[in-house]
């Protein structure tokens, strides 16, 4: 244990030390091989040094990552495939091999520039791989837990039941339908507000507003986009909710709750307006001025030009904006907690309290949780469903954008 403690922090220092050493040694060897005239070298000493540095560093990091993964998999299976302190030793061996190898290849004929390019490319590929593998890792970990859930709870009861009443003493009803309904209903209202208003704002800003107006309004909208959603949630809780209750729900006899689908939907819509408007604005601005000129020159008015020339040309971008907004709406949590309440309910009345998948994920995982009971594991099944939903939306967005690209570019 003690060995482990003082070994681990010094490992990075050792590897970097080796890398620096390799770099200097390789440069010196290259210089020596040149016999005083650098023109005799296939590559200058600089690239020799850089190549040697990366030849130590990259394999060391890669082997550390690989060995840690092996340990992780072993732990999951409950066997120790590798002991904890064998990892630093192995990494040091790899680093030393890299160091020796890089120094020994640094001869006059060695094309260190090409080798360095190869390392750079590998690093870039590694960066891309991190992004992809993380996504994969997230999906796999969710899948793992979700499978456990479905072993204890029948999938038909989960996907097709309209009753949600978890009970931590067992015998829960865990039907997703009321949550899914709440999610879609609230998102629908949010988009109904955000897409037209956002789009119209973008059209106004890019086609009608003067430069001074644009210079004031655009940053303001961007600020709006940067407000944390919890602040919007507070706005829902203290302002929109009570107003809707006192002026609509109660007088119309549609309920007496400040938390409602309408409250959350409207506030979420307000949150999404700047998002939709700035993405649509980009799409509209990308339409070439020459296309507008072509329309004006035919004697079209401004609104004819916008409706029939600019919007069709910007449509892929606008569709993309709407679908991205939909993904965000479906994944939003804070506004719903504070605006729509926590009651799982299947109802058409928009002034009644309902709740969403995200809210229930949070509530199932907070407090005393037992990670083996279906009441807790259901959160992962919910999360996976949500993931599949938003993934589907994003794929759809990509497909639409690509289809129009092909047609109009």
């Amino acid at each position, binding site marked *: 244990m003690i060995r482990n403690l003082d070994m681990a922090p010094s490992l990075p220092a050792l590897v970097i030390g080796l890398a620096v050493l390799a770099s200097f040694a390789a440069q010196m060897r290259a210089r020596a091989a040149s016999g005083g005239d650098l023109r005799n070298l296939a590559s200058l000493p600089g690239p020799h040094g850089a190549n040697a540095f990366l030849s130590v560093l990259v394999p060391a990091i890669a082997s550390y990552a690989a060995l840690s993964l092996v340990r992780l998999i072993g732990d999951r299976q409950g066997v120790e495939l590798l002991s904890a302190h064998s990892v630093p030793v192995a990494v040091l061996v790899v680093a030393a091999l890299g160091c020796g190898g890089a120094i020994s290849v640094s001869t006059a004929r060695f094309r260190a520039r090409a080798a360095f390019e190869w390392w750079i490319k590998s690093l870039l590929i590694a960066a891309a791989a991190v992004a992809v593998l993380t996504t994969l890792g997230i999906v796999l970990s969710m899948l793992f837990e979700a499978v456990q859930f479905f072993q204890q709870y029948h999938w038909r009861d989960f996907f097709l039941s309209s009753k949600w009443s978890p009970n931590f003493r067992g015998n829960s009803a865990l039907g997703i339908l009321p949550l899914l309904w709440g999610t879609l209903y609230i998102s629908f209202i949010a988009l109904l507000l955000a897409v037209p208003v956002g789009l119209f704002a973008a059209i106004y800003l890019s086609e009608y507003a003067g430069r001074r107006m644009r210079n004031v309004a655009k940053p303001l909208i961007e600020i709006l986009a940067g407000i944390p959603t919890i602040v919007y949630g507070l706005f829902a809780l203290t302002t929109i909710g009570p107003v809707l209750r006192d002026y609509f729900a109660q007088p119309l006899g549609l309920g007496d709750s400040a938390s409602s689908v309408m409250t959350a939907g409207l506030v979420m819509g307000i949150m999404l307006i700047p998002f939709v408007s700035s993405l649509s604005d980009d799409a509209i601005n990308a339409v070439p001025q020459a296309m*507008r*000129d072509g329309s*004006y*020159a035919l*004697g079209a008015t401004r609104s004819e030009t916008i409706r*029939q020339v600019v919007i*069709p040309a910007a449509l892929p971008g606008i569709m993309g904006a709407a679908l991205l907004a939909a993904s965000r709406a479906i994944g939003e949590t804070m506004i719903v907690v504070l605006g729509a309440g926590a009651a799982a309910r299947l109802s058409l009345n928009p002034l009644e309290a309902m709740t969403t998948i995200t809210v229930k994920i949070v509530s199932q995982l907070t407090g005393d949780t037992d990670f083996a009971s279906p009441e807790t594991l259901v959160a992962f099944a919910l999360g996976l469903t949500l993931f599949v939903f938003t993934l589907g939306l994003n794929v759809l967005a990509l497909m639409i954008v690509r289809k129009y690209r092909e*047609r109009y570019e």
Partner: protein
Amino acid sequence: MKDIDVIERSRAGARQKISARNVQVRYGHTAAIKNVSVDIAADTVTAFIGPSGCGKSTFLRCLNRMNDTIDTCRVTGEIRIDDEDIHDPKVDPVQLRAKVGMVFQKPNPFAKSIYDNVAYGPKIHGLARTKAELGDIVKVALEKAALWDEVKDRLDSPGTGLSGGQQQRLCIARAIATAPQVLLMDEPCSALDPIATAQIEELIHDLRRNYCVVIVTHSMQQAARISQKTAFFHLGSLVEYGDTDQVFTAPRDSRTESYITGRIG
């Protein structure tokens, strides 16, 4: 033939379609057009020639007030079309542009199908009462622009997917489908092969019977072939303006002579 043209025109000499007086254009602080006055006759093809950057496109855009769409651009002076001042507050630029069509220097098809590109103008101006009529307008316009045979089987595919020369002809078709009285053409043949160029020149020749055509061209041969009047621009000024025959055979200004013989520009 040419002689008859001249006689005809001198008889109808009073039929001026466009008359510009002391037109000046500046982009910000730089003057692009300096004090240009010119009369352009109806039923005539007028060619604008001159070296690159001398202001031909700029002056052309004055005639349908397309310069309004450029923030930094200021046009002063008087331009009358059919004896009506086009800068009069009563004149709606939208109406003006329906009457004065334009083909741009760079092709700018809409992100719509080939059919809709051409049908757009007739639709917004209500030129067709039925779908069939609209189809006819589109067909005739595409035929005149020498594009029909190439696109008749794919009227639904996007106009932006055509080749550069095809796009240019599509824009010509689009402009004539709206049936303007004046047609401003900014280097309409710059991306066309000799065959398509000949077809467009034929179109211009036909259009002349009913329209006033103003064409910018860098081809002296083309100007000589198709125009009856030629205006030579240089550094934002109108240097010489007269019958095409006279400008090309006996230019009055030395700069014109240098240009058409290939010494400037």
